[in-house]
Protein backbone atom coordinates (compact mmCIF):
# COMPACT_ATOMS: atom_id res chain seq x y z
CA UNK A 1 0.00 0.00 0.00
CA UNK A 2 2.90 2.27 0.70
CA UNK A 3 3.86 4.08 -2.45
CA UNK A 4 7.02 5.65 -1.15
CA UNK A 5 10.21 4.65 -2.83
CA UNK A 6 12.64 2.35 -1.12
CA UNK A 7 14.87 4.27 1.24
CA UNK A 8 18.31 3.98 -0.16
CA UNK A 9 21.29 5.00 1.86
CA UNK A 10 22.09 8.58 0.84
CA UNK A 11 19.08 9.76 -1.07
CA UNK A 12 19.94 13.21 -2.45
CA UNK A 13 16.29 14.23 -2.43
CA UNK A 14 15.77 13.38 1.20
CA UNK A 15 19.01 15.10 2.15
CA UNK A 16 17.77 18.18 0.32
CA UNK A 17 14.43 18.03 2.16
CA UNK A 18 16.25 18.09 5.49
CA UNK A 19 18.67 20.77 4.28
CA UNK A 20 15.77 22.89 3.11
CA UNK A 21 13.97 22.54 6.41
CA UNK A 22 17.19 23.52 8.20
CA UNK A 23 17.48 26.63 6.05
CA UNK A 24 13.84 27.53 6.75
CA UNK A 25 14.46 27.01 10.43
CA UNK A 26 17.49 29.31 10.44
CA UNK A 27 15.73 31.95 8.36
CA UNK A 28 12.77 31.93 10.71
CA UNK A 29 15.18 32.31 13.61
CA UNK A 30 15.97 35.58 11.83
CA UNK A 31 19.69 34.88 11.52
CA UNK A 32 20.08 37.14 8.51
CA UNK A 33 19.38 40.13 10.74
CA UNK A 34 22.98 39.77 11.86
CA UNK A 35 23.97 41.01 8.44
CA UNK A 36 22.59 44.47 9.17
CA UNK A 37 25.24 45.53 11.71
CA UNK A 38 27.89 44.00 9.47
CA UNK A 39 26.67 46.08 6.55
CA UNK A 40 26.81 49.16 8.75
CA UNK A 41 30.39 48.28 9.69
CA UNK A 42 31.50 47.78 6.09
CA UNK A 43 29.91 51.00 4.92
CA UNK A 44 31.18 52.80 7.99
CA UNK A 45 34.74 51.83 7.07
CA UNK A 46 34.50 54.35 4.25
CA UNK A 47 34.60 57.15 6.75
CA UNK A 48 37.94 56.07 8.12
CA UNK A 49 39.38 57.81 5.18
CA UNK A 50 43.10 58.14 5.40
CA UNK A 51 44.26 61.64 4.67
CA UNK A 52 47.62 60.05 4.44
CA UNK A 53 48.47 60.12 0.81
CA UNK A 54 51.60 62.14 0.25
CA UNK A 55 53.38 61.31 -2.94
CA UNK A 56 54.08 58.78 -5.68
CA UNK A 57 54.91 56.25 -2.99
CA UNK A 58 51.70 54.21 -2.70
CA UNK A 59 52.53 52.35 0.53
CA UNK A 60 50.16 54.38 2.64
CA UNK A 61 47.27 53.94 0.24
CA UNK A 62 47.99 50.24 0.09
CA UNK A 63 47.97 50.08 3.86
CA UNK A 64 44.66 51.85 4.00
CA UNK A 65 43.13 49.48 1.47
CA UNK A 66 44.59 46.52 3.24
CA UNK A 67 43.04 47.62 6.47
CA UNK A 68 39.69 47.78 4.72
CA UNK A 69 40.12 44.28 3.29
CA UNK A 70 41.45 42.87 6.54
CA UNK A 71 38.52 44.16 8.51
CA UNK A 72 36.04 42.84 5.95
CA UNK A 73 37.68 39.44 5.60
CA UNK A 74 38.17 39.17 9.34
CA UNK A 75 34.52 39.95 9.95
CA UNK A 76 33.50 37.36 7.39
CA UNK A 77 35.71 34.76 8.99
CA UNK A 78 34.53 35.51 12.50
CA UNK A 79 30.90 35.64 11.50
CA UNK A 80 31.12 32.50 9.38
CA UNK A 81 32.86 30.42 12.03
CA UNK A 82 30.82 31.64 14.97
CA UNK A 83 27.66 31.15 12.98
CA UNK A 84 28.81 27.65 12.06
CA UNK A 85 29.36 26.71 15.70
CA UNK A 86 26.29 28.34 17.18
CA UNK A 87 23.72 27.27 14.63
CA UNK A 88 24.91 23.66 14.48
CA UNK A 89 24.99 23.53 18.26
CA UNK A 90 21.48 24.94 18.46
CA UNK A 91 19.92 22.77 15.80
CA UNK A 92 21.03 19.22 16.51
CA UNK A 93 21.00 19.04 20.33
CA UNK A 94 17.78 21.03 20.04
CA UNK A 95 16.21 18.33 17.90
CA UNK A 96 17.23 15.70 20.44
CA UNK A 97 16.03 17.71 23.40
CA UNK A 98 12.67 18.54 21.85
CA UNK A 99 12.33 14.97 20.63
CA UNK A 100 11.59 16.30 17.15
CA UNK A 101 14.27 13.88 16.09
CA UNK A 102 12.09 10.91 17.14
CA UNK A 103 9.49 11.69 14.61
CA UNK A 104 12.03 12.32 11.88
CA UNK A 105 13.93 9.09 12.46
CA UNK A 106 10.66 7.14 12.63
CA UNK A 107 10.15 7.96 8.99
CA UNK A 108 12.33 5.98 6.61
CA UNK A 109 15.24 8.39 7.02
CA UNK A 110 18.74 6.93 7.30
CA UNK A 111 20.66 8.71 10.02
CA UNK A 112 23.43 9.66 7.61
CA UNK A 113 20.86 11.53 5.50
CA UNK A 114 19.77 13.48 8.54
CA UNK A 115 23.34 14.49 9.37
CA UNK A 116 24.19 15.45 5.81
CA UNK A 117 20.97 17.42 5.48
CA UNK A 118 21.72 19.44 8.59
CA UNK A 119 25.30 20.03 7.48
CA UNK A 120 24.22 21.11 4.03
CA UNK A 121 21.54 23.44 5.36
CA UNK A 122 23.88 25.28 7.71
CA UNK A 123 26.64 25.47 5.08
CA UNK A 124 24.16 26.88 2.58
CA UNK A 125 23.09 29.65 4.95
CA UNK A 126 26.75 30.48 5.58
CA UNK A 127 27.32 30.57 1.84
CA UNK A 128 24.49 33.04 1.35
CA UNK A 129 25.62 35.21 4.26
CA UNK A 130 29.20 35.20 2.98
CA UNK A 131 28.07 36.04 -0.52
CA UNK A 132 26.16 39.04 0.79
CA UNK A 133 29.15 40.19 2.84
CA UNK A 134 31.44 39.58 -0.10
CA UNK A 135 29.25 41.75 -2.28
CA UNK A 136 29.28 44.50 0.32
CA UNK A 137 33.04 44.26 0.61
CA UNK A 138 33.57 44.41 -3.13
CA UNK A 139 31.19 47.36 -3.51
CA UNK A 140 32.69 49.42 -0.68
CA UNK A 141 36.20 48.57 -1.75
CA UNK A 142 35.43 49.56 -5.29
CA UNK A 143 34.09 52.95 -4.23
CA UNK A 144 37.09 53.51 -2.06
CA UNK A 145 39.61 52.60 -4.75
CA UNK A 146 37.87 54.84 -7.26
CA UNK A 147 37.99 57.75 -4.83
CA UNK A 148 41.68 57.11 -4.11
CA UNK A 149 42.55 56.85 -7.77
CA UNK A 150 40.87 60.14 -8.56
CA UNK A 151 42.67 61.79 -5.67
CA UNK A 152 46.06 60.36 -6.60
CA UNK A 153 45.73 61.14 -10.28
CA UNK A 154 44.85 64.73 -9.55
CA UNK A 155 47.79 65.04 -7.20
CA UNK A 156 50.24 63.51 -9.63
CA UNK A 157 49.03 65.60 -12.54
CA UNK A 158 49.52 68.66 -10.36
CA UNK A 159 53.05 67.56 -9.76
CA UNK A 160 53.50 67.17 -13.48
CA UNK A 161 54.43 63.50 -13.55
CA UNK A 162 54.51 61.89 -16.98
CA UNK A 163 51.42 59.98 -17.96
CA UNK A 164 53.23 56.64 -18.12
CA UNK A 165 54.35 56.94 -14.54
CA UNK A 166 50.88 57.95 -13.40
CA UNK A 167 49.48 54.90 -15.13
CA UNK A 168 51.86 52.57 -13.33
CA UNK A 169 50.99 54.14 -9.97
CA UNK A 170 47.30 53.74 -10.74
CA UNK A 171 47.81 50.10 -11.67
CA UNK A 172 49.67 49.49 -8.44
CA UNK A 173 46.85 50.97 -6.39
CA UNK A 174 44.17 49.12 -8.36
CA UNK A 175 45.91 45.81 -7.60
CA UNK A 176 45.08 46.41 -3.97
CA UNK A 177 41.42 46.85 -4.72
CA UNK A 178 38.88 44.22 -5.43
CA UNK A 179 40.50 41.50 -7.51
CA UNK A 180 39.96 37.83 -8.23
CA UNK A 181 42.74 37.18 -5.75
CA UNK A 182 40.66 38.63 -3.01
CA UNK A 183 37.93 36.11 -3.75
CA UNK A 184 40.31 33.28 -2.91
CA UNK A 185 40.53 34.77 0.56
CA UNK A 186 36.74 34.68 0.84
CA UNK A 187 36.77 31.09 -0.38
CA UNK A 188 39.33 30.15 2.27
CA UNK A 189 37.16 31.60 5.02
CA UNK A 190 34.04 29.95 3.68
CA UNK A 191 35.74 26.56 3.57
CA UNK A 192 37.03 27.04 7.09
CA UNK A 193 33.49 27.78 8.29
CA UNK A 194 32.23 24.66 6.49
CA UNK A 195 34.87 22.52 8.24
CA UNK A 196 33.83 24.04 11.55
CA UNK A 197 30.21 23.10 10.85
CA UNK A 198 31.37 19.51 10.46
CA UNK A 199 33.36 19.75 13.70
CA UNK A 200 30.31 21.06 15.57
CA UNK A 201 28.22 18.34 13.94
CA UNK A 202 30.56 15.68 15.26
CA UNK A 203 30.56 17.16 18.75
CA UNK A 204 26.80 17.52 18.85
CA UNK A 205 26.35 13.85 18.03
CA UNK A 206 27.71 12.85 21.40
CA UNK A 207 27.00 15.90 23.50
CA UNK A 208 23.48 16.54 24.67
CA UNK A 209 23.81 20.20 25.50
CA UNK A 210 24.10 23.21 23.29
CA UNK A 211 26.52 24.95 25.61
CA UNK A 212 28.93 22.02 25.70
CA UNK A 213 28.87 21.78 21.91
CA UNK A 214 29.62 25.47 21.53
CA UNK A 215 32.44 25.43 24.08
CA UNK A 216 34.17 22.36 22.63
CA UNK A 217 33.73 23.47 19.02
CA UNK A 218 35.24 26.87 19.73
CA UNK A 219 38.13 25.14 21.47
CA UNK A 220 38.73 22.90 18.45
CA UNK A 221 38.54 25.93 16.19
CA UNK A 222 41.16 27.80 18.24
CA UNK A 223 43.44 24.75 18.32
CA UNK A 224 42.98 24.50 14.57
CA UNK A 225 44.14 28.08 14.15
CA UNK A 226 47.23 27.77 16.27
CA UNK A 227 48.35 24.15 16.34
CA UNK A 228 50.90 24.72 13.57
CA UNK A 229 52.74 27.20 15.76
CA UNK A 230 53.03 24.64 18.53
CA UNK A 231 54.04 21.89 16.14
CA UNK A 232 56.64 24.12 14.55
CA UNK A 233 57.98 24.72 17.99
CA UNK A 234 58.13 21.00 18.71
CA UNK A 235 59.68 19.86 15.48
CA UNK A 236 62.00 22.67 14.56
CA UNK A 237 63.87 22.99 17.77
CA UNK A 238 66.78 21.34 16.01
CA UNK A 239 68.12 24.75 15.12
CA UNK A 240 68.71 25.34 18.77
CA UNK A 241 70.47 22.04 19.10
CA UNK A 242 67.48 20.33 20.67
CA UNK A 243 65.96 17.42 18.85
CA UNK A 244 62.25 16.67 19.25
CA UNK A 245 61.68 13.75 21.56
CA UNK A 246 59.55 10.80 20.61
CA UNK A 247 56.87 12.00 22.97
CA UNK A 248 56.84 15.37 21.23
CA UNK A 249 56.42 13.66 17.90
CA UNK A 250 53.59 11.48 19.12
CA UNK A 251 51.72 14.39 20.66
CA UNK A 252 52.26 16.45 17.54
CA UNK A 253 50.99 13.71 15.29
CA UNK A 254 47.92 13.06 17.43
CA UNK A 255 47.07 16.73 17.54
CA UNK A 256 47.44 17.08 13.80
CA UNK A 257 45.26 14.06 13.14
CA UNK A 258 42.48 14.81 15.60
CA UNK A 259 42.26 18.56 15.13
CA UNK A 260 41.92 20.41 11.87
CA UNK A 261 44.87 22.53 10.82
CA UNK A 262 43.74 25.90 9.51
CA UNK A 263 47.23 27.18 8.66
CA UNK A 264 46.77 27.00 4.91
CA UNK A 265 43.33 28.62 5.16
CA UNK A 266 44.77 31.56 7.04
CA UNK A 267 47.79 31.82 4.76
CA UNK A 268 45.70 32.01 1.61
CA UNK A 269 43.35 34.58 3.11
CA UNK A 270 46.32 36.61 4.27
CA UNK A 271 47.98 36.44 0.87
CA UNK A 272 44.74 37.51 -0.75
CA UNK A 273 44.42 40.56 1.45
CA UNK A 274 48.05 41.50 0.78
CA UNK A 275 47.28 41.33 -2.93
CA UNK A 276 49.88 38.64 -3.43
CA UNK A 277 49.12 36.37 -6.31
CA UNK A 278 47.51 33.22 -5.00
CA UNK A 279 48.86 30.12 -6.66
CA UNK A 280 46.09 27.96 -8.16
CA UNK A 281 47.72 24.79 -6.85
CA UNK A 282 47.44 26.22 -3.34
CA UNK A 283 43.74 26.79 -3.89
CA UNK A 284 43.43 23.22 -5.11
CA UNK A 285 45.23 22.01 -2.02
CA UNK A 286 42.94 24.15 0.13
CA UNK A 287 39.82 22.62 -1.41
CA UNK A 288 41.26 19.15 -1.03
CA UNK A 289 42.10 19.76 2.61
CA UNK A 290 38.64 21.15 3.36
CA UNK A 291 37.05 18.19 1.58
CA UNK A 292 39.17 15.78 3.55
CA UNK A 293 38.27 17.34 6.90
CA UNK A 294 34.58 17.44 5.98
CA UNK A 295 34.72 13.78 4.97
CA UNK A 296 36.52 12.70 8.14
CA UNK A 297 34.22 14.58 10.50
CA UNK A 298 31.04 13.51 8.74
CA UNK A 299 32.05 9.85 8.79
CA UNK A 300 33.03 10.10 12.46
CA UNK A 301 29.70 11.81 13.23
CA UNK A 302 27.90 9.00 11.51
CA UNK A 303 29.78 6.38 13.51
CA UNK A 304 28.66 8.01 16.73
CA UNK A 305 25.15 8.80 15.58
CA UNK A 306 24.43 5.46 13.94
CA UNK A 307 23.96 3.55 17.19
CA UNK A 308 22.68 6.42 19.27
CA UNK A 309 19.57 5.68 21.30
CA UNK A 310 16.80 8.10 22.02
Amino acid sequence: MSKSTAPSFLSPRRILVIAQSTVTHLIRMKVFYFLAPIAVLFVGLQFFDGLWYAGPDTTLVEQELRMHKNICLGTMMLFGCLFAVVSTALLIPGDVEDRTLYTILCKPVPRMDYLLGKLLGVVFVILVAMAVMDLLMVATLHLRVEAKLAEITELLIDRGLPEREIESVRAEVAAHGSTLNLQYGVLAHFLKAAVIVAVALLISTFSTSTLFTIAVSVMVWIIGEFQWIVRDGLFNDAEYGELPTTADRIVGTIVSVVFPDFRLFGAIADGASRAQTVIPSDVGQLCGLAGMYLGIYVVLSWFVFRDKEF
Partner: protein
Amino acid sequence: MSEVPAVEVKDLVKDFRGSFRGRKVRAVRKVSLQIAPGEVYGLIGPNGSGKSTTMKALLGLLAPTSGACAIFGRNSLKVDSRRDVGFLPENPYFYKHLTAAETVRFFGKLCGMRGRKLRERVSELLKLVGLEEARDRRLKGFSKGMLQRIGLAQALVQEPRLLVLDEPTAGVDPAGSREIRDLILELKKRGITVFLCSHLLEQVQEVCDRVGIINQGVMVKEGVLEELISLENRTELVLENAGPDLRDQIRLLVEVTDGARMVSEGKARTTLERLFLEETRDRPANQKNLQDDE
Protein backbone atom coordinates in the same frame (compact mmCIF):
# COMPACT_ATOMS: atom_id res chain seq x y z
CA MET B 1 -1.61 -17.88 10.60
CA SER B 2 0.43 -17.84 7.42
CA GLU B 3 0.19 -14.07 7.13
CA VAL B 4 3.21 -12.03 8.14
CA PRO B 5 2.35 -10.35 11.45
CA ALA B 6 2.20 -6.56 11.40
CA VAL B 7 4.17 -6.42 14.62
CA GLU B 8 6.36 -9.07 16.07
CA VAL B 9 8.22 -8.53 19.32
CA LYS B 10 10.18 -11.53 20.40
CA ASP B 11 11.70 -11.93 23.86
CA LEU B 12 12.51 -8.25 24.02
CA VAL B 13 14.86 -7.28 26.82
CA LYS B 14 16.04 -3.73 27.29
CA ASP B 15 18.51 -2.55 29.88
CA PHE B 16 19.32 1.06 30.52
CA ARG B 17 22.52 2.02 32.16
CA GLY B 18 21.50 3.78 35.33
CA SER B 19 23.99 6.09 36.94
CA PHE B 20 27.65 6.55 36.21
CA ARG B 21 28.44 3.52 38.31
CA GLY B 22 26.82 1.42 35.63
CA ARG B 23 24.00 -0.08 37.63
CA LYS B 24 21.64 -1.40 35.03
CA VAL B 25 17.92 -0.85 35.00
CA ARG B 26 15.99 -3.53 33.21
CA ALA B 27 13.02 -1.70 31.69
CA VAL B 28 11.62 -4.56 29.62
CA ARG B 29 11.98 -8.24 30.54
CA LYS B 30 11.38 -10.78 27.83
CA VAL B 31 8.26 -9.26 26.35
CA SER B 32 6.80 -11.06 23.36
CA LEU B 33 3.80 -10.02 21.38
CA GLN B 34 2.34 -10.41 17.94
CA ILE B 35 -0.21 -8.25 16.21
CA ALA B 36 -2.01 -9.52 13.14
CA PRO B 37 -2.70 -7.15 10.23
CA GLY B 38 -5.93 -5.23 10.78
CA GLU B 39 -5.94 -5.74 14.51
CA VAL B 40 -6.10 -3.02 17.16
CA TYR B 41 -3.84 -3.93 20.04
CA GLY B 42 -3.65 -2.10 23.33
CA LEU B 43 -0.74 -2.29 25.71
CA ILE B 44 -1.73 -1.15 29.17
CA GLY B 45 0.29 -0.70 32.28
CA PRO B 46 1.18 1.86 34.92
CA ASN B 47 3.72 4.62 34.34
CA GLY B 48 7.24 3.33 33.98
CA SER B 49 6.19 -0.21 33.13
CA GLY B 50 8.05 -0.27 29.84
CA LYS B 51 5.36 0.60 27.29
CA SER B 52 7.24 3.42 25.62
CA THR B 53 10.46 1.45 25.70
CA THR B 54 8.80 -1.44 23.87
CA MET B 55 7.44 0.92 21.24
CA LYS B 56 10.75 2.69 20.75
CA ALA B 57 12.48 -0.64 20.27
CA LEU B 58 9.87 -1.55 17.69
CA LEU B 59 10.65 1.67 15.81
CA GLY B 60 14.40 1.21 15.99
CA LEU B 61 14.97 4.22 18.23
CA LEU B 62 16.43 1.86 20.79
CA ALA B 63 18.49 -1.23 20.14
CA PRO B 64 17.25 -4.28 22.10
CA THR B 65 19.63 -5.67 24.69
CA SER B 66 18.41 -9.03 23.51
CA GLY B 67 15.48 -10.27 21.50
CA ALA B 68 14.20 -8.69 18.30
CA CYS B 69 11.39 -6.63 16.85
CA ALA B 70 9.99 -6.65 13.34
CA ILE B 71 7.39 -4.71 11.42
CA PHE B 72 5.73 -6.71 8.65
CA GLY B 73 8.63 -9.11 8.83
CA ARG B 74 11.33 -6.45 8.50
CA ASN B 75 13.81 -6.06 11.33
CA SER B 76 13.24 -2.83 13.24
CA LEU B 77 16.91 -1.98 13.19
CA LYS B 78 16.77 -1.60 9.40
CA VAL B 79 15.62 1.68 7.93
CA ASP B 80 13.21 0.13 5.47
CA SER B 81 11.12 -1.34 8.29
CA ARG B 82 9.94 2.22 8.85
CA ARG B 83 8.29 2.56 5.46
CA ASP B 84 5.05 1.04 6.57
CA VAL B 85 4.70 2.51 10.01
CA GLY B 86 3.52 5.81 11.44
CA PHE B 87 4.50 6.74 14.97
CA LEU B 88 2.92 9.19 17.37
CA PRO B 89 5.37 9.67 20.24
CA GLU B 90 4.37 10.39 23.79
CA ASN B 91 3.89 14.17 24.13
CA PRO B 92 4.81 14.87 20.55
CA TYR B 93 6.73 18.00 19.78
CA PHE B 94 7.41 19.48 16.38
CA TYR B 95 9.25 22.43 14.91
CA LYS B 96 7.50 25.45 16.35
CA HIS B 97 8.39 27.62 13.39
CA LEU B 98 6.42 25.55 10.89
CA THR B 99 2.70 25.80 10.27
CA ALA B 100 0.40 22.80 10.57
CA ALA B 101 0.37 22.25 6.82
CA GLU B 102 4.14 22.70 6.51
CA THR B 103 4.72 20.17 9.27
CA VAL B 104 2.68 17.47 7.59
CA ARG B 105 4.24 18.33 4.23
CA PHE B 106 7.75 18.05 5.70
CA PHE B 107 7.09 14.54 6.97
CA GLY B 108 5.47 13.60 3.68
CA LYS B 109 8.58 14.73 1.83
CA LEU B 110 10.75 12.67 4.15
CA CYS B 111 8.74 9.66 3.02
CA GLY B 112 9.50 10.51 -0.58
CA MET B 113 6.14 12.05 -1.44
CA ARG B 114 5.81 15.22 -3.47
CA GLY B 115 3.82 17.29 -5.91
CA ARG B 116 0.09 17.36 -6.12
CA LYS B 117 -0.33 14.02 -4.45
CA LEU B 118 1.40 15.35 -1.36
CA ARG B 119 -0.61 18.58 -1.37
CA GLU B 120 -3.84 16.65 -1.55
CA ARG B 121 -2.74 14.27 1.15
CA VAL B 122 -1.87 17.16 3.46
CA SER B 123 -5.32 18.74 3.03
CA GLU B 124 -7.02 15.40 3.45
CA LEU B 125 -5.16 14.66 6.67
CA LEU B 126 -5.69 18.08 8.19
CA LYS B 127 -9.37 17.63 7.53
CA LEU B 128 -9.31 14.15 9.01
CA VAL B 129 -7.79 15.38 12.27
CA GLY B 130 -9.89 18.54 12.35
CA LEU B 131 -7.16 21.11 11.92
CA GLU B 132 -8.26 22.72 8.67
CA GLU B 133 -8.77 26.13 10.24
CA ALA B 134 -5.34 26.04 11.82
CA ARG B 135 -3.53 24.89 8.71
CA ASP B 136 -1.54 28.09 8.18
CA ARG B 137 -0.84 28.85 11.79
CA ARG B 138 2.55 28.15 13.27
CA LEU B 139 2.66 25.39 15.85
CA LYS B 140 4.06 27.82 18.43
CA GLY B 141 0.62 28.52 19.87
CA PHE B 142 -0.93 25.09 19.53
CA SER B 143 -2.60 23.44 22.49
CA LYS B 144 -1.69 19.95 23.61
CA GLY B 145 -4.68 18.42 21.86
CA MET B 146 -3.82 20.14 18.62
CA LEU B 147 -0.22 18.94 18.77
CA GLN B 148 -1.50 15.44 19.34
CA ARG B 149 -3.62 15.72 16.22
CA ILE B 150 -0.77 17.09 14.16
CA GLY B 151 1.17 14.10 15.43
CA LEU B 152 -1.53 11.79 14.16
CA ALA B 153 -1.60 13.53 10.78
CA GLN B 154 2.17 13.21 10.31
CA ALA B 155 2.07 9.58 11.41
CA LEU B 156 -0.50 8.84 8.72
CA VAL B 157 1.10 10.85 5.95
CA GLN B 158 2.59 8.06 3.85
CA GLU B 159 -0.50 5.83 4.31
CA PRO B 160 1.29 3.33 6.53
CA ARG B 161 -0.29 -0.04 7.20
CA LEU B 162 0.68 0.15 10.86
CA LEU B 163 0.12 2.95 13.30
CA VAL B 164 1.98 3.03 16.62
CA LEU B 165 0.47 5.41 19.15
CA ASP B 166 2.13 6.13 22.48
CA GLU B 167 -0.52 7.45 24.87
CA PRO B 168 -2.54 9.09 22.11
CA THR B 169 -5.05 10.68 24.46
CA ALA B 170 -2.78 11.73 27.30
CA GLY B 171 -3.45 15.30 28.26
CA VAL B 172 -6.30 15.71 25.80
CA ASP B 173 -9.75 16.71 27.05
CA PRO B 174 -12.56 14.09 26.91
CA ALA B 175 -14.08 15.51 23.72
CA GLY B 176 -10.69 15.44 22.04
CA SER B 177 -9.92 11.95 23.20
CA ARG B 178 -13.33 10.78 22.04
CA GLU B 179 -12.45 12.13 18.59
CA ILE B 180 -9.14 10.37 18.65
CA ARG B 181 -10.89 7.13 19.57
CA ASP B 182 -13.38 7.57 16.76
CA LEU B 183 -10.49 8.17 14.43
CA ILE B 184 -8.81 4.97 15.52
CA LEU B 185 -12.03 3.05 14.89
CA GLU B 186 -12.29 4.69 11.47
CA LEU B 187 -8.73 3.66 10.64
CA LYS B 188 -9.47 0.16 11.82
CA LYS B 189 -12.35 0.03 9.37
CA ARG B 190 -9.93 0.92 6.62
CA GLY B 191 -7.80 -2.06 7.60
CA ILE B 192 -4.97 -0.25 9.32
CA THR B 193 -3.29 -2.08 12.14
CA VAL B 194 -3.04 -0.04 15.33
CA PHE B 195 -0.70 -0.61 18.23
CA LEU B 196 -1.46 1.76 21.08
CA CYS B 197 -0.56 2.04 24.70
CA SER B 198 -2.19 3.81 27.53
CA HIS B 199 -2.61 3.82 31.26
CA LEU B 200 -6.23 4.96 30.86
CA LEU B 201 -8.10 1.71 30.80
CA GLU B 202 -11.58 2.70 29.59
CA GLN B 203 -10.13 4.10 26.41
CA VAL B 204 -8.32 0.93 25.56
CA GLN B 205 -11.48 -0.99 26.28
CA GLU B 206 -13.47 0.84 23.66
CA VAL B 207 -11.19 0.39 20.70
CA CYS B 208 -8.97 -2.64 21.16
CA ASP B 209 -9.47 -6.14 19.89
CA ARG B 210 -6.69 -7.49 22.00
CA VAL B 211 -4.84 -6.17 25.02
CA GLY B 212 -1.68 -6.93 26.87
CA ILE B 213 -1.10 -5.89 30.44
CA ILE B 214 2.47 -5.01 31.26
CA ASN B 215 3.86 -4.37 34.70
CA GLN B 216 7.47 -3.60 35.61
CA GLY B 217 8.60 -4.76 32.24
CA VAL B 218 6.82 -8.09 32.33
CA MET B 219 3.80 -9.00 30.23
CA VAL B 220 1.43 -10.31 32.89
CA LYS B 221 -1.69 -11.00 30.87
CA GLU B 222 -2.59 -10.98 27.23
CA GLY B 223 -5.65 -11.88 25.28
CA VAL B 224 -8.85 -10.99 23.46
CA LEU B 225 -10.49 -8.10 25.26
CA GLU B 226 -13.98 -9.64 25.40
CA GLU B 227 -12.64 -12.75 27.05
CA LEU B 228 -10.54 -10.87 29.52
CA ILE B 229 -13.28 -8.66 30.85
CA SER B 230 -16.55 -10.52 30.48
CA LEU B 231 -17.96 -12.25 33.54
CA GLU B 232 -19.28 -15.37 31.90
CA ASN B 233 -22.05 -16.13 34.38
CA ARG B 234 -23.46 -12.63 34.73
CA THR B 235 -25.99 -10.63 32.73
CA GLU B 236 -26.81 -6.95 32.99
CA LEU B 237 -30.11 -5.39 31.98
CA VAL B 238 -30.98 -1.72 31.96
CA LEU B 239 -34.66 -0.74 31.97
CA GLU B 240 -36.39 2.51 31.20
CA ASN B 241 -39.62 3.69 32.87
CA ALA B 242 -39.90 0.49 34.92
CA GLY B 243 -42.36 1.03 37.79
CA PRO B 244 -42.11 -0.66 41.21
CA ASP B 245 -44.56 -3.38 40.07
CA LEU B 246 -42.43 -4.53 37.19
CA ARG B 247 -39.34 -4.54 39.40
CA ASP B 248 -41.15 -6.67 42.00
CA GLN B 249 -42.21 -9.10 39.31
CA ILE B 250 -38.69 -9.46 38.01
CA ARG B 251 -37.30 -9.94 41.51
CA LEU B 252 -39.91 -12.65 42.10
CA LEU B 253 -39.04 -14.36 38.85
CA VAL B 254 -35.39 -14.41 39.78
CA GLU B 255 -36.15 -15.86 43.20
CA VAL B 256 -38.11 -18.80 41.85
CA THR B 257 -35.50 -19.62 39.21
CA ASP B 258 -33.02 -22.26 40.34
CA GLY B 259 -29.48 -20.99 40.76
CA ALA B 260 -30.19 -17.44 39.65
CA ARG B 261 -29.44 -14.57 42.00
CA MET B 262 -29.93 -10.81 41.83
CA VAL B 263 -26.51 -9.33 42.47
CA SER B 264 -27.33 -5.64 42.40
CA GLU B 265 -30.08 -3.25 41.59
CA GLY B 266 -30.17 0.49 41.42
CA LYS B 267 -30.47 3.56 39.22
CA ALA B 268 -28.47 3.31 36.03
CA ARG B 269 -25.94 6.08 35.88
CA THR B 270 -24.30 7.87 33.12
CA THR B 271 -20.55 8.07 33.40
CA LEU B 272 -19.06 11.39 34.28
CA GLU B 273 -17.36 11.30 30.96
CA ARG B 274 -20.57 10.82 29.02
CA LEU B 275 -22.12 13.67 30.97
CA PHE B 276 -19.19 15.92 30.17
CA LEU B 277 -19.41 15.05 26.51
CA GLU B 278 -23.12 15.77 26.35
CA GLU B 279 -22.78 19.09 28.11
CA THR B 280 -19.95 20.29 25.93
CA ARG B 281 -21.22 18.91 22.66
CA ASP B 282 -22.29 22.15 20.92
CA ARG B 283 -18.81 23.56 20.98
CA PRO B 284 -16.70 22.19 18.14
CA ALA B 285 -13.40 20.96 19.40
CA ASN B 286 -11.01 22.98 17.30
CA GLN B 287 -12.86 26.18 17.92
CA LYS B 288 -12.41 25.53 21.58
CA ASN B 289 -8.74 24.94 21.08
CA LEU B 290 -8.41 28.15 19.15
CA GLN B 291 -10.01 30.00 22.00
CA ASP B 292 -7.60 28.38 24.41
CA ASP B 293 -4.69 29.92 22.65
CA GLU B 294 -5.96 33.41 22.28
